[in-house]
């Protein structure tokens, strides 16, 4: 960080104080949640217990028509055994993947930390058919729901359900809308190692489908090309993404990585929702993640989406009552004899209050992992949105 953040926050706070008379120039929202978690990683079945307060603040500023400023940050106060047991836990929370360090551990102890991190801080300007966006933003080119080979600007982590917004990139983005549904985009970001990722992107709509193609450079190391689509077959959502990454250094050899994900989703009349997705990965022989824990914590680039040739996902979601929703997600990795099961129960307590019980169970021969092959996580979360 660190001093950089404070002026930005102050700027927004001061502006908001001065402009309170004109409330339509400002929008404010967010949430506050508390989550108790238990993790079981070893064969002795020791419980590792943690508690997390998570506060998100979204601030939007509309000083003129067509001009928007956005600042969003989150505050986390966590205490528990993970911080004691795992070396560098609090530091890993403070780790930035983007160019600017906009995260700070305000307080840190043996068994707790308080972290504040800005994950959106950008200005956006609409000029006729053009949209210019500068600053920390999320550039999301995904079409499927679990694995997104086209979503090259983001760090993916499916398992981090408590952070649906995901981190932003320090980027510049120009969008040109050629008609109501088509657009041409150019985007570039620098990561924390000052490595450049840039790409061009074109999306268009034809025959009831959205299509997209993209090409660019990933972290100055790989050329990439991809395509994706969203449409439907007999009322079911049919989506897919493909990307190919070829290292610049070995441009002519076979060290490239290819991912393809395909997704189907269907909602029945009784609101039962089913979704299934498959990911095919063509990886070079020496391509490895360091372990399953790394996969759980989220790969660092889109190039590390998977560690097995096939990955399968399925999810059912059903409102047992209008207020109580049950969902059941599963993943299967045939090469590793591994699976993941994630049942979730959510209960709406009030208009803006929700209680959830979330479980995550992992089993498999995750060979490079130092942890046991069975892992259990259970979370109880109370969330208030405002």
């Amino acid at each position, binding site marked *: 960080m660190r001093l950089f953040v404070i002026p930005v926050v102050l700027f927004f706070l001061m502006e908001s104080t001065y402009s309170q008379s004109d409330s339509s120039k400002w929008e404010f929202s967010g949430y506050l949640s508390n989550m108790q978690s238990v993790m079981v990683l070893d064969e002795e079945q020791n419980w590792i217990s943690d508690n997390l307060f998570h506060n998100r603040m979204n601030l939007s500023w509309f000083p003129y028509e067509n001009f928007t400023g956005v600042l969003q940050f989150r505050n986390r106060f966590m205490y528990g055994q993970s911080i004691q047991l795992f070396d560098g836990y609090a530091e890993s929370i403070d780790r930035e993947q983007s160019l600017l360090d906009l995260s700070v551990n305000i307080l840190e102890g043996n068994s707790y930390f308080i972290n504040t991190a800005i994950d959106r801080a950008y200005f956006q300007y609409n000029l006729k058919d053009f949209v210019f966006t500068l600053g920390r933003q999320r550039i999301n080119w995904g079409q499927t729901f679990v694995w997104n080979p086209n979503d090259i600007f983001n760090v993916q982590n499916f398992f981090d359900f408590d952070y649906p917004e995901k981190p932003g990139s320090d980027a510049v983005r120009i969008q040109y809308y050629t008609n109501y549904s088509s657009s041409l985009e150019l985007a570039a970001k620098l990561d924390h190692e000052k490595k450049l990722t840039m790409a061009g992107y074109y999306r268009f709509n034809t025959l009831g489908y959205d299509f997209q193609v993209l090409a660019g450079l990933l972290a100055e190391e790989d050329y990439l090309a991809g395509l994706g689509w969203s449409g439907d077959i007999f009322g079911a959502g049919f989506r897919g993404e493909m990307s190919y990454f070829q290292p610049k250094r070995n441009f002519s050899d076979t060290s490239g990585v290819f991912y393809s994900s395909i997704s189907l989703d269907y*909602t029945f009349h009784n609101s039962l929702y089913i979704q299934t997705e498959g990911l095919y990965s063509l990886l070079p022989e020496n391509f490895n993640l360091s372990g399953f824990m790394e996969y759980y914590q989220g790969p660092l680039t889109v190039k590390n989406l998977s560690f097995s040739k096939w990955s399968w996902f399925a999810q059912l979601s059903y409102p047992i009552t209008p207020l109580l929703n049950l969902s059941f997600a599963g993943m299967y990795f045939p090469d590793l004899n591994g699976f993941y099961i994630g049942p979730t129960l959510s209960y709406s307590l009030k208009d803006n209050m929700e209680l959830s019980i979330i479980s995550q169970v992992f089993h498999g021969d995750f060979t490079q992992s130092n942890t046991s092959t069975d892992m259990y996580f259970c979370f109880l979360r109370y969330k208030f949105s405002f």
Partner: protein
Amino acid sequence: MKIYSLFSLLILGCFSANAQEMSATEIIRKADELLQGNSNYAEISMKIHRPKWDRSLTMKSWSKGNDFSLIYIISPAKEKGQVFLKRNNEMWNWLPSIDRTIKIPPSMMMQSWMGSDMTNDDLVNESSVIKDYDHKIVGEEILEGLECYIIELIPHEDAPVVWGKIYSWVSKTKYFALKNEYYDEDDFLVNIETLSNIKNVGDRTIPTKFTIVPVDKEDHYTEMEFVNIKFNIDIEESFFSIQNMKKIR
């Protein structure tokens, strides 16, 4: 799905004009035009009441004809800022928190919100009370001091409609319905809708509050109210674009 469409009810809600000289179908066509206008903008609040809980939803809506629609969710807080765009048969959902445009397949349009009687489809896709039904004047009655025709609507066999039939009480002089009764395919009365809060909203007078009560469920109702509505606003087709979906508020 229990109640087919609050929005289609809206269309039913306002039959109009010189009923003596018009056939039932013409009345309905007129009513459709009265309630839709060429285009409209509305701020809508919806409340779902059940014996042990209430939930509410507020939104802004822009539409042009039957083919173009844009809905901005104001509350609940968790969903605030989400936008739905409909162009002809295609629909998209904008989720600002993750910078994601999701193309909504036809099946997902049937998802209901909070167990309400409203689905994504209802939000944007009015079924056609003109095209999908046969209409007949079957009687007269006085409701709320207003003389009404009772009009029977029977759906065509192949129509994508859940009702077996609908009866509608239409004011002879005020040109809108005061009550609608919805029957299932076995001729059982399922829902009664009452229309109230009749207001002059600028260029026309219409009911602004719609209450739907399921007949066999005690203390259940869904209520929809137009807090603000304007007709024949100046709006181009190009307003209903992905670019604008991300910008509107």
